[in-house]
């Protein structure tokens, strides 16, 4: 991959900042999401809550379904492939997807290797729960990172944990002496040049969103105040009582994430939130996939 293609792919993520990316399973849902103010949609066959409920192996969606969504909206369309499944990624590239999510939400296809994302022209976003995972994915070619959180639960605790862990480690790296970076890189199992970037700039070299368990406008604003540059909302919208209204409120909460009065208004009369599952009640920890 040419250096300039990677730059363009990182820059597309910059255009998504301050926005909300919504999981959708049909063209109709994609239109609702776009109308509600989504800055991109993630096309997938089943939302994480249903994947969790149904069990079994979860794979890339039918290209026909994804293309239906591409035709329905003008905003960028993302889609998920399984961790390590580079042929699913090749298929998504062939249908000119705007962003591929190599995602722990689907069943991993490879329990050791991730996709060599630098071989692709289209951009990739990957989940991470700490700085080491984030920089390893970037080294493989990811041009955007999101926290893993715990998808399909409606429980924000893990997204909070991952965002705090990442930012805490970034602050620690910033405070190291320059000659301590190599040892830190060894411990984190990441390339030293990427860690040097973090040391100098106090942030990841790519855009970092929050994902996994965001269900309310307050959850979204919480993640923004903790340092997320935007938010993915999966099951939280289309598993709730009034998806269009909830989606629009989350979008506005991300724009004015520090305005408590506005968020109070946005949190009013939203109807039923997704019921959710506590982290102690879940059987599969998706965040443990792909380290």
């Amino acid at each position: 991959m040419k250096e300039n293609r990677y730059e363009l792919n990182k820059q597309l993520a910059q255009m998504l900042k301050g926005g909300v990316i919504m999981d959708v399973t049909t063209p109709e849902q994609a239109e609702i999401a776009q109308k509600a103010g989504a800055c991109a949609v993630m096309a997938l066959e089943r939302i994480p809550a249903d994947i969790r409920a149904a069990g079994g192996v979860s794979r890339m969606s039918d290209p026909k379904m994804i293309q239906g969504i591409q035709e329905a909206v003008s905003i960028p369309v993302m889609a998920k492939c399984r961790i390590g499944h580079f042929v699913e990624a090749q298929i998504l590239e062939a249908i000119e997807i705007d962003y591929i999510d190599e995602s722990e939400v689907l069943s991993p296809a490879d329990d050791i290797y991730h996709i060599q994302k630098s071989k692709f022209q289209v951009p990739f976003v990957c989940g991470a729960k700490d700085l080491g995972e984030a920089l390893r994915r970037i080294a493989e070619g990811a041009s955007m990172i999101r926290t893993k959180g715990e998808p399909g639960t409606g429980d924000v605790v893990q997204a909070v944990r991952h965002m705090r862990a990442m930012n805490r480690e970034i602050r620690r790296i910033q405070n190291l002496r320059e000659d301590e970076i190599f040892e830190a890189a060894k411990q984190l199992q990441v390339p030293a040049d990427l860690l040097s970037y973090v040391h100098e700039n106090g942030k990841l070299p790519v855009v970092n969103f929050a994902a996994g368990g965001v269900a309310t406008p307050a959850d979204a604003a919480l993640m923004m105040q903790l340092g997320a540059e935007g938010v993915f909302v999966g099951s939280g919208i289309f598993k709730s009582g009034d998806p269009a209204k909830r989606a629009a409120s989350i979008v506005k909460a991300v724009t004015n994430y520090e305005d408590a009065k506005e968020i109070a208004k946005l949190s009013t009369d939203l109807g039923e939130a997704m019921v959710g599952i506590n982290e102690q009640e879940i059987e599969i920890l998706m965040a443990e996939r792909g380290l």
Partner: protein
Amino acid sequence: MKIGILALQGAFEEHGHMLDQLGVEHFEIRKKDDLKQDFHGMILPGGESTVMGKLLLELDLFESIQTKINNGLPVLGTCAGLILLAKQVKEGKPHLATMDINVQRNAYGRQLGSFNTQGMFDHLGTVPMTFIRAPYIESVSGNAKVLATVDEHIVAARQENQCVVAFHPELTQDTRVHEYFLRMI
């Protein structure tokens, strides 16, 4: 001099960094109260025009901003910001509709169509141009003037107090387009 940057969604921070380099004071516009202060120019950044257009209305910013622009406030629109200002948007609806340009959204296709190039910009010479899922201007009318073209498509234009570019000067190291805008003030 003080510049307001529309910060509803998208790459607004990057414009702030450009203005920092030029030593110009700036602030973010996220809600109506932010418009109360005095300022001398406004930047509408890149991002998703559908999102910004919707939030302009719902956060009750639309009319105030439209009035300010019609009353002569200098404005720079990049990419999605260009779409916000266009009076005509092909296969879409116009937003602020203050500028006599006809725009094609996602004119270069999906992300695989994004590209870098260099092009001649009126009075500035050759400038680097980064196009991300970019629009282009199909035609200008009234007293709108073309500032730059790439492959025969119009990618920058000016109409009195309004300047628009389909590319992203804020993603490059080159501050000349921002300086051009500041000279309009």
